[in-house]
């Protein structure tokens, strides 16, 4: 073992280099596999710069349509988050170790939540679009289902960290299960549930703009059409609306979350 002047053990240098070497090999192998190369990247830069320049001169006559598209996206996010909250609520208690009626139901609940969460939103959206036709409704359902999985898991973690004291006190006083749940569990979990849901809403607002790309309504629909015809000035307008609205939502939601927890 090598020690430095201060007599401290030096971290294994050769391990660091071996790791770096291994990584370099993986990178080069990958870069060849996807035919990505630095020259190609540099070659493409002028084109990208031209397109960015075109987007920076947005077509303001599309501001109104972009904004109403974004309103639909936000509505999709809002409805999807609400559906997720409602479905995640019972599932989270079922999945939590301490509240679930049985160890088996806790295990089952966790697995169901994990399974739901694994499906990327956009794949869910593709299926809902196939079943319900291209519409904001399909987007809402995709976001709702995915949020059920992700919120359920987070809710369950909150439930598992609650203080058992108030529950025991109420039980000792002879309260029934409903009373224990209402007076000892709910006050402990509700603020955190709401904070997590707000955070999920921020994520969903972004997701809703994207789902339109596969036909799930909102501003993504405008984006897809503008991109199809390379109308960069409309793309630029839609992007500005997305950036402004998403930033506003993030800021408002973060302020609310700070008050909650």
């Amino acid at each position: 073992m090598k020690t430095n002047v201060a007599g401290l053990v030096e971290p294994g240098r050769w391990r660091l280099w071996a790791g770096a070497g291994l990584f370099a090999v993986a990178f080069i192998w990958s870069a060849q596999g996807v035919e990505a190369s630095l020259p190609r990247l540099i070659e493409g830069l002028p084109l990208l710069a031209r397109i960015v320049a075109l987007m920076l001169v947005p077509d303001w006559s599309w501001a109104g349509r972009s904004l109403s598209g974004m309103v639909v996206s936000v509505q999709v996010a809002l409805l999807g988050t609400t559906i997720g909250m409602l479905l995640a609520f019972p599932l989270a208690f079922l999945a939590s170790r301490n509240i679930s009626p049985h160890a088996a139901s806790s295990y089952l609940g966790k697995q169901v939540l994990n399974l739901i969460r694994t499906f990327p939103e956009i794949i869910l959206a593709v299926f809902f679009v196939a079943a319900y036709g291209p519409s904001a409704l399909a987007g809402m359902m995709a976001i709702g289902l995915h949020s059920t999985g992700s919120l359920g898991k987070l809710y369950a973690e909150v439930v598992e960290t609650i203080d058992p004291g108030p529950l025991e006190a109420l039980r000792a006083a002879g309260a029934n299960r409903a009373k224990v749940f209402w007076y000892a569990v709910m006050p402990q979990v509700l603020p955190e549930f709401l904070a997590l849901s707000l955070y999920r809403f921020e994520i969903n607002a972004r997701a809703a703009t994207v789902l339109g790309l596969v036909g799930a309504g909102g501003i993504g629909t405008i984006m897809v059409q503008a991109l199809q015809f390379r109308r960069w000035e409309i793309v630029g307008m839609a992007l500005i609306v997305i950036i402004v609205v998403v930033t506003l939502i993030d800021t408002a939601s973060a302020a609310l979350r700070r008050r909650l927890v």
Partner: protein
Amino acid sequence: MGIGASPRVVWEGLPSFYKLMGDLFPPNWTVLPALVQPAVQTLQMALVGTTQGALLSVPLILLASRNVTRQAWLYYGARGILNLLRTVPELLYAAILVAAVGIGPFAGILALTVFSVAIIAKLTSESLEAIDPGPMEALEAAGANRLKMVRYAVVPQVLPAYLSYTLFVFEINVRVSFVLGLVGAGGIGQLLLTALNLFRYQSATVIILVTLAAVITIDAISVRVRQAIV
């Protein structure tokens, strides 16, 4: 107003949804061998995108840290750019880049790169601002220049955070890379889109299962590696 959603509309669509779910089974496993190469290529896209992002984020990390960059306009400029880049979702970048450079993995890698830069630089610069100022002050007092200060006082302190955030982003990028193809940006998602457009649902099932398997595997590996580093 509203998006026209109601329990009734959802209810009325359920039969066609059930039918679609039925069409997905049984999975057409014969396509599996043909998916290995695209799946590997998809992981390669994530690896290249994340690496490029990690490398390009280095100057931005330094610029967006108040204790390294003392020129206010540079610092706020870098912060502003990072916040702006972070607002746009990866798939939106991908869709825009597909229109710009054409369908295929190149657009996808570019999208992953841009997004990785934004996240890695944002998170790492926050860690950098929280480092112990002692070593930097000591080096400055000893007359070291900026470059030496970064090399000997900053790098050793933020390297673990930087690597850990890069891995975290890699995990996100793997998830995203498998669906990038749905907007035309290469990888296995493009096969999924084709299968769905041609109503080859039983083949689509296998592609989705491969995607889920890949996501679960990478999650498990990433958790282990991150535990080893931090």
